[in-house]
C-alpha cells in the first residue's frame, strides 16, 4: 500500500518544523545576550563604571574605555555625517538620475559591504604610519568615519529620494530657491530616515573591533586629547576575554557595551518607524 501524506498533514508538519526552528533561533539569540548579562550584571557598580583601569584590566573599572569609546564614536560621526548627508543631497538634488549618480551609489553600496579589517589595514598604514597620527582617537575616528560614510550616503539618499516631488514644487512655486527648499523642506522631511542611517552607523562603530584596535590602539590610560591612544569597550572586552585576564570584568564590559548598542539600535528602529508611518 502506498503511503501518501496529504496536503493538510504536510502543512501541519511544516508548521511545526517552522515554529520549532523559529523558537530555536530566538532562544539561541536570547541565550547569547542572557549569558553575557547574567554574568555581567553583578559587575555593574558605580565603581566599575567610573573607576580607572588597573592591573591590565584585572582591577578597577572601565571609565577610560567608556570615555574613549565616546570620543572615537562621536568624532567619527561628526566627520562622517556632514560628508555623507551632503553627498546624498548633492547626488539627489543636483545630479538627477544620471550615470554619475548611479556609479557613485554603486560605489557606496560596495564599500558598505567591505570587511572592517580592510579598513583597519588601511587606517593603520595610512593614518597611523604614513600620516604620522600614531595610535590615536583621531586615527580611529577617521577610519571609522570612512567606514560608515557609505552607509550614511545610502540611507540618506533613500530618505531624500522619498520626499515627494510635490513638496519641492510647492516650495518653488512659493518663491523658494533651491537651497531654501533643501534646507527648509527636503531635509526636515527626510530627517528621520537620515537619522536612522546615522544612528545605525553609530551602532556599527561602537561595536567595531578590527578597525579600531589597529588604529586607536589599546592603551588603558584615560585619553586626554584626540591624539591619545585609547582602548574602546569592544577592544577592551576582546583583550580581557582572549587573554583570560579577568572573566568577570570581561562580562561586565560586554554587558555595558551591549546595553549601549541595544539602546542605540532601539532608537534607530523607533525613528525608522516614524519615518515609514509618515509616508506609507
Amino acid at each position, binding site marked *: 500500500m502506498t503511503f501518501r501524506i496529504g496536503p*493538510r498533514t*504536510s*502543512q501541519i508538519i511544516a*508548521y511545526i518544523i*517552522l*515554529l520549532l*526552528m*523559529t523558537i530555536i*533561533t*530566538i532562544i539561541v*539569540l536570547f541565550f*547569547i*545576550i542572557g*549569558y553575557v548579562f547574567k554574568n555581567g550584571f553583578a559587575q555593574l557598580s558605580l565603581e566599575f563604571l567610573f573607576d580607572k583601569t588597573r592591573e591590565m584590566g584585572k582591577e578597577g573599572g572601565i571609565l577610560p574605555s567608556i570615555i574613549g569609546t565616546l570620543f572615537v564614536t562621536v568624532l567619527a560621526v561628526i566627520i562622517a555625517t556632514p*560628508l*555623507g548627508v*551632503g553627498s546624498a543631497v*548633492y547626488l539627489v538634488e*543636483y545630479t538627477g538620475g544620471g550615470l554619475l549618480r548611479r556609479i557613485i551609489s554603486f560605489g*557606496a*553600496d*560596495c*564599500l558598505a*559591504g*567591505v*570587511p*572592517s*579589517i*580592510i*579598513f*583597519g*589595514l*588601511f587606517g*593603520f*598604514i*595610512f593614518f597611523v604610519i604614513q600620516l604620522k597620527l600614531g595610535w590615536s582617537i583621531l586615527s580611529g575616528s577617521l577610519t571609522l568615519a*570612512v567606514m560608515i*560614510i*557609505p552607509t550614511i550616503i*545610502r540611507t540618506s539618499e533613500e530618505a531624500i529620494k522619498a520626499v515627494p516631488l510635490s513638496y519641492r514644487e510647492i516650495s518653488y512655486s512659493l518663491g523658494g530657491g*533651491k*537651497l531654501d527648499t*533643501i534646507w527648509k523642506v527636503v531635509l526636515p522631511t527626510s530627517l528621520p530616515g537620515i537619522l536612522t542611517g546615522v544612528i545605525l552607523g553609530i551602532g*556599527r562603530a561602537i*561595536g*567595531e*573591533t*578590527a578597525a579600531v584596535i*589597529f588604529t586607536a590602539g589599546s592603551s588603558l590610560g584615560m585619553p586626554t586629547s584626540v591624539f591619545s591612544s585609547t582602548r574602546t569597550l569592544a577592544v577592551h*572586552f576582546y583583550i580581557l*576575554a*582572549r587573554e583570560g585576564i579577568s572573566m568577570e570584568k*570581561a562580562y561586565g564590559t*560586554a554587558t555595558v*557595551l*551591549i546595553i549601549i*548598542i*541595544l539602546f542605540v*539600535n532601539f532608537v534607530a*528602529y523607533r525613528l525608522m518607524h516614524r519615518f515609514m508611518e509618515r509616508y506609507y
Partner: protein
Amino acid sequence: MKDKIAEKLLLFIAFSAIGSLLLITFFIFQQGIPLIFKIGLSNFFSMHWSPTRGQFGILSMIIGSLMVTVGALIVGIPFGLACAIYLAEFSSKMVQKTLKPIIELLAGIPSVVYGFIGIVILVPFIRTHFGGPGFSVLASSIILGIMILPTIVSISYDSLVAVPNTYREGSYALGATKWQTVVKLLIPAARSGIVAGIILGMGRAIGETMAVIMVAGNALKIPHSILDSVRTLTSTIALELGYATGDHRAALFACGAFLFIIITILNIIAIRVTGHRE
C-alpha cells in the same frame, strides 16, 4: 547667489566623501597589486603562506574562508528562511511586530561577543563531544551562521511580505493549503529577494574577522574535516598586520584587494538579482 555657493559647497562635500572612498580603494590596490605581479599569479594562488620564507600563496586561506562561509550558510539559510516564512505567513501581526525588530536588534551585537560565547561554550562542547581541538571549521560555521541569521531573516521576510496578496488569494481560491502556496508560489515569487539576502549574508560571513580569529584556531593547514582548525583570509590580515613589512605587508594588501573584489562581485550579483538596491 546663495544657491550658487550652496551648490559649490555641496559639490565640494560630495567630492571629499567620494574622494575618501576612492582613496581607500586605490590605496589598497596600489599597495597590493604590484606584489601579485612580482611573484606571479600562479604563486599568489598557490598553497603555501609562509611570509618569512617569501611564500605568499593564499589558496589554503581561500579554501579556509570558503569552508567557513559555506558552513555558515548551511547553518544560517535553513533557520533564517524558516524564521522568515514563519513570521511572514504563519504568525499573527502582533507576533511579527514584536519578533522582527527583536531579531534585527540582535544584528547589532558586536562580533567579539559572538566569538567569546563561541570560545566559552561552543569550543569546549565540540572538543568533548566530537573531538579535535574544538577550535574548528564547525565552531566557526555555527558562530558565523548565527551572526548572519538576522540579515537573512530580515531580507527574506521583506521579500515575502512584498509579494502581493492577490497571489495568495488566487492560490487559496484554487484550493491550495497555505504551505502549498508558500512552497509553490510565494517562495519562487520572492526568490530574487531571498537570494539577495543570502548573498549579503555570505558577504558578511566572508568578511568577518574577530569572531573567526577567536574560534577557528588559525592553523595554516587546509582542514581535512570540519573538526580541524582553519585559517581564513581575514584572520591572516588581522594576525600579521601589526608586524608585516615590505613584501609581506604588500601581500596582506593583496589579500585585502582580493577580498574587496570578491565582495564587490557578490554585491553586483545581489543587485542584479533584485533589480534594485536593498
